[in-house]
């Protein structure tokens, strides 16, 4: 039985879709049967980030409205055999799917996959509720900006209320040069404020833009630091104990855990 993991953020534009694409790619590279589910109905993008936009036949709403079987809506990745995508509908809106339909769908799908990653839309309305309805775990993507962390905090509260306690955070688009100058919040600052576990840090890397331009998730690129970060997140998600590479972070993290374990 596979696990259903929702990738959320609250705020838009922090890298949810890119993160979903890359973690999914990395999990498939690890030999895990992985399905990506785009629930951003009306604003679908996971297909273009994956470079699969020309292969769409059916979409999520076709599945929930029983116009096709889930299998028929799945698009196989160009290279990775174990990776598939069910795209969102582009011409409908968030109310086209209900929470119970999502739960039913994920419960059916989990029989055939090791991991089902749900790309959650921005916001905290119906689309968010749909995306988290069938999930077992949640990841929260944020960037080191006040607006993104504030929204992440709100989402953590809503996830708890939805029965998804202890989500893990990915801090995306970190500019380490700015952190060193004291002009960007540190990972420690963000973890202290959100008071949740870290699962990964991804540097702001122009290679991500380039790989997205080409529709090739950067996780496939063995030479890229950002690609490595995503592969490490995938491995941690799968239970591997991989130390965090950023100096000082791990020590801080253990102290923080000790504080909250009390």
């Amino acid at each position, binding site marked *: 039985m596979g696990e259903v993991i929702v990738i959320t953020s609250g705020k838009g534009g922090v890298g949810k879709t890119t993160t979903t694409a890359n973690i999914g790619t990395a999990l498939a590279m690890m030999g895990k049967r992985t399905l990506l589910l785009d629930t951003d109905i009306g604003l679908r993008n996971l297909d273009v980030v994956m470079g699969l936009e020309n292969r769409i036949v059916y979409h999520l709403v076709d599945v929930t409205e029983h116009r096709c079987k889930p299998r028929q809506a799945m698009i196989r990745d160009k290279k990775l055999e174990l990776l598939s995508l069910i795209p969102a509908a582009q011409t409908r809106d968030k109310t086209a799917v209900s929470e119970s339909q999502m739960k039913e769908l994920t419960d059916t799908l989990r029989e055939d996959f090791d991991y089902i990653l749900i790309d959650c839309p921005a916001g905290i309305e119906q689309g968010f509720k749909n995306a988290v309805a069938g999930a077992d775990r949640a990841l929260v993507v944020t960037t*080191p*900006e*006040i607006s993104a*962390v*504030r929204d992440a*905090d*709100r989402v*953590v509260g809503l996830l708890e209320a939805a029965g998804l306690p202890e989500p893990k955070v990915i801090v995306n688009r970190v500019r380490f040069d700015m*952190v060193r*100058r*004291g*002009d*960007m*919040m*540190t990972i420690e*600052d963000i973890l202290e*404020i*959100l*008071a*949740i576990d870290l699962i990964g840090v991804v540097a702001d890397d122009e290679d991500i833009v380039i790989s997205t331009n080409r529709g090739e998730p950067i996780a496939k690129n063995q030479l890229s630091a950002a690609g490595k970060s995503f592969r490490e997140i995938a491995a941690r998600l799968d239970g591997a104990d991989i130390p965090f590479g950023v100096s000082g972070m791990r020590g801080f993290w253990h102290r923080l855990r000790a504080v*909250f374990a009390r």
Partner: protein
Amino acid sequence: MIWLRHIFHREERSRKSRYDARERLKLVLVQDRVDLDAKQMEALKNDLIDVVDRYLDIDRTAMDVSFSRDRGSVAIVASLPLQNSEGRHASA
């Protein structure tokens, strides 16, 4: 938020923007959590001090009232030193 600015007055000019972000974020999250805006929080703080001041002589130059926040809970942390309390004790 005059009282908060007061707390950080010493480092205000030299400190890096990271600290501005952190402190503003903490404050805004407390406001989100308790559902009070900055003006209401300032009023709450002043009322709190006034009530204590009715009974005890507070040293207003040394006091510190802030909101501390943890996941799931917000606390008002007030340090209100009393005027001349140490001196009186020493002379007794």
